[in-house]
């Protein structure tokens, strides 16, 4: 599906230019833009009233505060308001914001269709997002995905810590299993212990268990 009418809510002139150019490239004739949240909201409202609604909104999150904001000062507020009056509008968030919390809340609570972080490949990713949304698919750019999954962070839980400690103490997997059983801690089968250790090695990019133990010991984790 291609779009005939798209609104760009963005306060930065050069980005507006880039985005409008990209949309024209994709064959959208009617591209309008707005630099203030409340102005964008009014445009959507008017289009709806004229029975010629926008099909897609490309929206930034951070706006320069202005007197025209009329109490609406962030992309989140704008999108929430628009989704309320026109639930079928597709929304692509296009922003520098890459905080996990914010991405999560936009995707889960406000239910935007796509989330693209600005950056070197920003416009390329926007292109992909428009294509995906056109096919009724949700899309998050790789940067946002990384932020969402927090794959750069390894969170050790108490069980894993204990496991590492026991391995470092020189216990074999069978002995660890017995020890955990005696303390009523599960999972305690040799199989699951091996699984956990392998996952940990992966997480720490360690080829062998001794390398893993050396690493976690050096980092003061055990």
């Amino acid at each position, binding site marked *: 599906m291609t779009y005939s009418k798209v609104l760009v809510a963005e306060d930065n002139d050069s980005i507006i230019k880039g985005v409008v150019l990209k949309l024209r490239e994709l064959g959208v004739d009617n591209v309008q833009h707005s630099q203030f949240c409340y102005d964008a909201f009014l445009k959507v409202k008017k289009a709806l009233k004229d029975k010629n609604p926008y099909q897609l909104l490309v929206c930034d999150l951070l706006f320069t505060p202005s007197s025209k904001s009329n109490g609406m000062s962030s992309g989140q507020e704008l999108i929430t308001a628009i989704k309320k009056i026109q639930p079928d509008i597709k929304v692509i968030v296009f922003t520098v914001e890459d905080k996990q919390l914010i991405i999560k809340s936009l995707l889960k609570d406000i239910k935007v269709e796509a989330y693209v972080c600005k950056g*070197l490949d920003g416009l390329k990713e926007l292109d992909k997002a428009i294509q995906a949304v056109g096919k009724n698919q949700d899309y998050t750019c790789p940067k946002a995905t990384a932020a969402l999954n927090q794959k*750069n*962070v*390894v969170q*050790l*839980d108490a069980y894993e810590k204990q496991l590492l400690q026991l391995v470092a103490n020189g216990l074999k997997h069978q002995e660890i299993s017995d020890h955990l059983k005696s303390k009523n801690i599960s999972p305690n089968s040799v199989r699951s212990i091996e699984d956990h250790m392998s996952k940990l090695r992966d997480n*720490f990019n360690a080829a062998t268990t001794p390398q893993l133990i050396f690493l976690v010991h050096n980092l003061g984790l055990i």
Partner: protein
Amino acid sequence: MKISAVSFLFYCVFFCCFLKSNMALAQQQKDSTRYYYELANNKKTNVDLIKSLNYLEIKEAENLSNGDTLNAIQNLRMIAIIQKDMRLLNKSENTSVKALQLLDQFQTKDSITKAARTGLNNNIGKIYRELGEYEKAIKHYDNIITNDPSLKEYVTALNNKGFALYEQQKYHLALENYTIAHSNSLILNDKKIIARAQDNLGITQSKLNNDFAFINMISALKIRDSLKFKNGIITSYLHLAEHFIDRNERGNASFYLEKAHLIANEADNINFKEAVLSLKMDLKNDPELLEYKKINEEISANEKRRRNSFAADQYDFNKALIKVKEIDIIAEKAKTKNIYYQFLGAFLLILFIFSYFILKSKYKKEKLQEIHNTEAHISKKIHDELGNDVFYLMSQIQSNPESLLNNKGVKVLNGLNNIYNKARDISKSLSKIETGNSYPDELTALLNSYGSDVTKIVTNQITPDFWKTVSKYKKEELYRILQELLTNMKKHSEATFAAVLFTKKQNKVIINYADNGIGVTKNDFKLNNGLSNVESRIDAINGNITFEMKPNDGFKVEIRFTA
């Protein structure tokens, strides 16, 4: 040590001065009391008496409020005596009664309180006698007699009581008192008192037609003669004359009257003269003269009464006058004080307003300064981190445009991307921090944003309520601290792993940071602006931080602060 010695010396000097001034004050008080006693005793003018009275009354009130009852009583006694001298008999009576009531508070009976009690009762007795209220006078003399007085006081009281009874013409009772007084006066062995008792005994016996009357009066006269006690001698003569007038022995009577007249003239004492002449008239037994004498006595009694009441009025008037003056002075003082307080209040108000504005402008200035500092800091950061990169890229393009623009200009794009990321990081480092329930997520997101495909960040899972007891401010500071550490890690360490562990011991939050990078040397550390920022932030939350610096062996930091 030196200072304490000096301060001790100063204290001593101060204390001595204080003591001295205190003593001087006490001295002064005593002196002025004595001065007024003497003023009262010398009885120069009524004004002096009133001055003394006023002073003593103030002192008495002061004594009472200070709980110095004994001095109050002494002063009251003096007041009563002055009042009696001024013929303010009723007032004197009231004062004496008040003093007696105060005296009753003393359970123990030492010589001072006893003397005071006797003196007061005596004073009241005299007043009643002058007022002609003999029964009341007798009651007070009885008070003295039953109150274990000294022998002299006892005899005096008996004499006075006897006189009151005699005036009432209760001669038998008078005789009884005089007899006891006489026998006791013999023990006392005071000739003046013996003579008085014996003389009184004699005249009373004379009234009762007792045979010993004449002998007693003559014996008393002899004693008084030997003492050359003129007042006593004339009294004796008058009594003897009266004795003979009663018995109608005119020759004897006029013999003693002439002698009395002689002494009265010699002493030039009008009271005695009056007494002598009065008896002389009785002797002449002329009805007209006697009537004249009776009328005269009535007139003088009236006159006396009038004078009494006039004295009382005069006294009240003078006192009121003085009081008014005093009140004026007090009012004036109060007014001055009032004005003083008003000035003080106004001054304080002005001071308050001034300091308010000064503080306000100071606060404003500080706030502005803070804003300027922050702005300067940010602009410096932008210049250092972005400006330099842009400049570097520009110079690269100028010097070698072909190689940079190879492969669709990927090198230029990468350079620009770096600059963009830095700009975004600066913006992020100044953005708002979520410190509520999602603070742990915020921290994880922070760690994640500093991780990459080549650098993994490790942390431990924490309990949901880990951050509940930590204040918002400390959470914010901690976030910035971690941000600085991680920025440092990303810029300089070349680490592939960094660990940030959160633990809690009792109320202490402990954060351990470690990486496997190239480590930091002391020189690096000194030059590193970010790490010194960390130190100042730790100071701000009253925490402490330890850096472990070993070249080529990673970088370790431990942060501790109270939640």
